[in-house]
Structure formats: C-alpha cells, structure tokens
C-alpha cells in the first residue's frame, strides 16, 4: 500500500511540534527588559519560592550566621550593623576601587572585608563569600539597580563602560558569536533545555542547577565564554568586570530579585 503523504506530513508536523515545544505551551517572552525569573520553567520558579526546599536557603542560613560571627575578627555586624542597613549596597556595584582605576564587584568587596577581619584566604566563589553575597542581595531585593559614575572619576568609569559595551558586541570563540546575537536578537528562543534570556543581572547570586551550587555573575560570564567556545578570561580579569558594569548600566532601574535559581 502506498504511504499517505498527507498522513506522513501530519505525523512529521506533530513530531516537530513535540521537539520544539518542550516546556510550557505559551511562547517565552522576548522583552529585553525582563528579569531572568520570567524565563524559568514553573518547576524551578516554585522551587525558588519554597524556602524550606530551595537549596539557596542553605547559603542564606550560613550567611546570616556568618554576619554576626566574630571568631576570627570583628563581625560584619560590628562595622555595618544589620544586613538590612546595606540594602542599597548590592545595587551600586561594580564600583571603582577606592585607590585605583580598577573595578570591583560586591564579591571582591566581601573578600577585601574578609581579609580585614581575619579571613585571609577568602576567594569569590567560596561558600562563605557566596553566603554573605546571598544575604546582601536578599536584603537588596526590590532595590532598583543604580550604577553611576562616581563624582570626579567619570573618565575612567566611562572608559570601563565603553570597553564593556565593546565586549558585548564583539564576536568571539569558535562559535563566533557576540553577546548581542543571543541576548538582544534572540531573546525567548529555545536552545534544547535552555531559553535565551536578555541577560539582565537582577537575580544574582544564582544557584545554577548545572553547577549544583551558588555562583557569582563572574562565573556565569565565564560560562558564557565557554558556551561560545572562547578562551575563558581568568577569574578576576578586568574584562569580566567591564562586562558586568555594562550589563548593570544596561539594566539600571530594574529591581534586584536575587538570589535565584537558574537552569
């Protein structure tokens, strides 16, 4: 019996629909002014909101305990008071370091503070630093991102910002794509299990399911470099800070909503 072309066509169409429409039936948004939370599948969104189930709570519990821990030196509380009093802090990073021309992000500041208070070996992706970052970002929830040039240092700040913008629009890696190609031109499109978000850094630090750990924006940016098969910049590289500055300024005004869960 000859195969029915229309029947085959219908079956292929259904198969294509099944392959393309993985998660929710409604299409993903393509608005570039949205938080990453808008691109989470319902299961992960529910996990994020469930305090007793979410792994983020482990880091928040640890951070709250560390905030008042004075075993190695003065505690954070000793100088800063309660974490809530620093609620505008997370929204203003990255900043120009006090003495030089280099940019620092919130985790860099926590590492510096840690060294001052007796924790000399702290690194940005350590659980303790991540825990404190989580606490500070939780305190800053709802605060609009507000990254501005410091008075009197507009020139170096602007240079970092321009370099960040340039990095955002430069093709790189074996895959030869620039950030704009995905995060501006293809927002809402699916790549296997991932959905392309606009890349607004409102939800950091993130518990990325593939990391099974909390991580910083810097780590996520390095992951992006590996995604396009480019050489990863070293941890702490100026390029990563410049990119972070550009992303934050691009998202200025958007409310912080971290820490969050991501795929």
């Amino acid at each position: 019996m000859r195969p029915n072309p229309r029947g085959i066509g219908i079956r292929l169409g259904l198969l294509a629909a099944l392959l393309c429409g993985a998660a929710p039936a409604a299409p993903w948004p393509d608005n570039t002014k949205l938080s990453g939370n808008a691109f989470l599948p319902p299961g992960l969104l529910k996990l994020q909101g469930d305090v007793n189930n979410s792994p983020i709570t482990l880091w928040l519990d640890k951070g709250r305990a560390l905030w008042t821990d004075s075993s190695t030196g003065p505690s954070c509380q000793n100088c800063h008071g309660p974490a809530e009093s620093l609620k505008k802090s997370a929204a203003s990073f990255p900043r120009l370091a006090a003495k030089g021309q280099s940019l620092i992000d919130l985790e860099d500041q926590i590492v510096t503070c840690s060294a001052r208070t007796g924790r000399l070996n702290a690194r940005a992706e350590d659980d303790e630093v991540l825990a404190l970052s989580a606490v500070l970002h939780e305190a800053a929830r709802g605060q609009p991102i507000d990254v501005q040039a410091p008075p009197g240092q507009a020139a170096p700040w602007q240079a970092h910002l321009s370099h960040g913008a340039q990095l955002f629009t430069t093709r790189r890696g074996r895959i030869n794509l620039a950030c704009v190609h995905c995060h501006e031109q293809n927002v809402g499109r699916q790549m296997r299990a991932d959905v392309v978000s606009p890349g607004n850094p409102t939800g950091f630090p993130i518990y990325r399911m593939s990391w099974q750990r909390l991580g910083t924006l810097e780590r996520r940016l390095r992951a992006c470099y590996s995604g396009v098969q480019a050489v990863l910049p070293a941890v702490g590289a100026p390029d990563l800070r410049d990119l972070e500055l550009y992303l934050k300024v691009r998202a200025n005004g958007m409310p912080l909503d971290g820490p969050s869960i991501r795929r």
Partner: protein
Amino acid sequence: MATNIPSRLTFAGAIRPGNTIEARWIVGHPMETGFRIDDAGQRILRNVITQVRVLLNGKLILELEPGTGMSANPYLTFPVTVPLTGGSVRVEWLDDAGQRGSVQQLLLLEP
C-alpha cells in the same frame, strides 16, 4: 578540614498528638560522585553522605543509605507521627570522608 555544613529541618502540618506531619530536611553537602575530573585532569574523590539516621525523641525511626544517585544538597521529606507530648526530631549523617553532622528541631505542640 571540617567545614560547617548547613542543614535545615522543618515541619509542615498541624503539630498535634497523633497527627502525621511532613518533615523536610535539606543539607548543603556537595555529594561528590567520584566521576568528575578537575581542571588538572585528576579525578575528584567520591564524597557522598552514606548514612542518615532520623531519631524521634532519641528513638530511631528511619535510616537512609543515599548514594551517588542523590543530587547535591540533598533534600528529603518524610512522615513523622507526633508523639503525645511532642518532643524533637534529630537527623544525623555521615559521609565518605568520615564527617558527621546533625540538625535538630523541636516538635512544639500547637494548642
């Protein structure tokens, strides 16, 4: 080097004598499978929680033997029947590296 592994034990449901409530336990353990290779090409040693004991008022009610098939930062919910006078639930664990940990939560009877 003993790092302080965070853990949380909470309950859902009315804590009244005879009620069966849901206990939720989460622990911040990396559950290293032993299959991963680090940047230097060296295999990262397996370190998973291998034994968990759940005690209700000091008496063992549940014993778990997790393996590498449990995800990192393990999470488990299980039923607990509230005793007549309440009490406490304690979860203790042991991992491949010999590290022990525990978390406890009181069962405060609701009026």
